[in-house]
């Protein structure tokens, strides 16, 4: 094996890590908004991702069977639809469930876990227990070979670009928009925010719904690299919680850095160890890190 082969393998393995990074980051961002900013633990977050994934599958099925004209373009519409549907369900869940439990964070954990069980069963009854995959449009297939022996799959590139766009949009919204200002004010001091005329309840609901919507987009991205089953989302829930805590809750930039670090650690160690041992190693490293530095990589300056 020559040096350039090793370099190519290293690059491709690194790129596989980037795909994982994309899903973890999108999941983590949604959670970081909900958990970091609002202090609500949403164990059903994975199921919102599954909602997004099934939405894409539904659109793909429609494009295949009813509207063949759209078989190349449906994917872009489906991403928007995934956001909208997850957003709407999130809005509903906040209204029905979460708003009654803001004072009891540990209980939101149990209630949303119950919610996730129910949603999984709904998926199972609607789409069947088997894993499904949408038919991807042709322009997402194939790979890009900038160099001899180096193949970079196009769907991975697309997911990465999508992630970057969403992340940039969220960071901008959080730090430049009125909504972001309201959210940050509510997090910093709920009573003062209320007193200065911010409707904190509405802010909470919008924040929760946006977090869920981002999870829906994560699901749409997920369909390009894996198949969707009723429990697909729950496989990522612990990882994404660790991404958020490792990065330092209430710090979106920390989430980006930690998602990158975790995905790359796992992907690179997968090359040397078996898949399960790579996972154990990654998780152990995170847990040890959190034991030494519980506030995560980027500590929030807010006292609470």
């Amino acid at each position, binding site marked *: 094996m020559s040096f350039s082969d090793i370099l190519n393998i290293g690059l491709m393995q690194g790129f596989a890590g980037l795909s994982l990074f994309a899903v973890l980051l999108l999941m983590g961002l949604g959670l970081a908004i909900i*958990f970091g900013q609002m*202090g609500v*633990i949403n164990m059903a977050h994975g199921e919102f991702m599954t909602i997004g994934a099934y939405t894409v599958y539904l659109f793909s099925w429609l494009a295949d069977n009813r509207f063949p004209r759209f078989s190349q373009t449906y994917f872009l519409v489906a991403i928007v639809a995934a956001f909208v549907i997850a957003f709407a369900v999130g809005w509903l869940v906040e209204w029905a*469930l979460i708003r*009654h*439990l803001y004072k*009891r*964070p*540990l*209980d939101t*954990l*149990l*209630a949303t*876990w*119950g*919610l996730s*069980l*129910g949603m*999984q*069963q709904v998926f*199972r*009854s609607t789409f069947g227990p088997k894993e499904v995959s949408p038919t991807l449009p042709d322009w997402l297939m194939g790979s890009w070979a900038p160099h001899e022996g180096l193949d970079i799959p196009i769907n991975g590139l697309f997911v990465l670009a999508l992630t970057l766009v969403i992340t940039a949009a969220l960071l901008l919204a959080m730090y430049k928009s009125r909504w972001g200002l309201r959210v940050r004010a509510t997090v910093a001091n709920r009573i003062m925010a209320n007193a200065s005329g911010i409707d904190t309840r509405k802010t909470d609901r919008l924040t929760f719904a946006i977090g869920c919507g981002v999870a829906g987009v994560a699901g749409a991205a997920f369909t390009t690299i894996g198949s969707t089953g009723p429990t697909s989302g729950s496989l990522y829930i*612990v990882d994404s*919680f*660790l991404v958020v*805590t490792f990065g330092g809750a209430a710090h979106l930039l920390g989430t980006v850095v930690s998602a990158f670090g975790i995905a790359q650690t796992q992907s690179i160690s997968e090359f040397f160890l*078996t898949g*399960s*041992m790579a*996972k*154990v190693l990654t*998780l*152990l490293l*995170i*847990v040890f890190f*959190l*034991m*030494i530095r*519980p506030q995560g990589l980027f500590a929030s300056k807010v006292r609470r």
Partner: protein
Amino acid sequence: MNTIKTWIHQHQLGGLLALALLILVILPAGLDIFRLNLFGKYLTYGFVSIGLVMLWGHSGILSLGQGVFFGLGGYCMAMFLKLEASDPISTRIQSTPGIPDFMDWNQLTALPLWWQPFHSLTFTLLAVVLVPTLLAFCISFAMFKRRVSGVYFAIITQAVALILSVLIIGQQGVTGGVNGITDLKTLLGWDIRSNSARYILYFANAGLLLACIWGCMWIQKTKLGTLLLAMRDKEDRVQFSGYDVANFKVFAFCLAAALSGIGGAMFTLQVGFMSPSFVGIIPSIEMVIFAAVGGRLSLVGAVVGTLLVNLGRSYFSESFPDLWLFLMAALFIGVVMAFPNGLAGLLDSHIKPWLARRAASRQTPVAATGDPVVPASITPTQDLPLPTTIQAQPE
């Protein structure tokens, strides 16, 4: 007779005695050995539930990793039983006789060093309690000394559950992998699969559970228990009164871990195997719901809740497998939203006042005939709601 009654009332042993009557007399009398063995299995989850009552209800620390300790206790016991089941004579067809069958299938030729001590029953019995406790100590000491608590602690315990289950499944050469440790036959030559052994193990398990509940009740009544309760409600005040809160939290976590470990070992003895499906995230969080349904504040209630949820599961998953997850979802959401103190809380807030009203209204006519001077408007029935409203005001 009256003195016994007062004694029971003073020590709040009524619930415990009712539970003892249920699991020591009624269940064994009314069920065949197959069903009784099933109940014995459910009762082993009861150890986890009472651990969670002490940890979560009484001390305010939610752990989503109790399956880890249940599993560790169970695996310690299973390793001992497996070593006894794989003596060189009964494993002579293997390429390496004398080691557990799954090791042979995975081309291991010698017993790993850390399996060696499990040849001894004394070591195993100690390990059942000490291994979970030590792990719990390591986790909780590091976390609580740095004042990590609440949600973060719950997430870390969940990560630990994930790590251990992935590790056990991945290292199948030394742990038996996803199948776990199976084909356990004898305990010091005593066949644990026979009906008589199952009866004995059931009663040993039930007795041990009652003893553990009694021990926890005793802890709740000591100064330590009061401090744990105080820590749950106003952690800062306990800290400012000069107590090191972290130490008490570590104690509560270790206690819950030790109880779970005992439950795991009893599970292995009664069911005859141990597998990673009792270690991961899903079983761990289900154990929390057992305790929540019964009542996170009541030791006896948590055990009853465990029995009910498991009965419901075995009934529904046999008859309507699709409905079970919906029911479980409804349980999680309903318990949290509608009655956070579970069945025991309902008993205290609704059934007991109702019984008191019933008793009072039964006495009223007697009082009315005995003492006709008392006007009907101030009979006890109408007086009763008054104190409850006064009590409700401070909340």
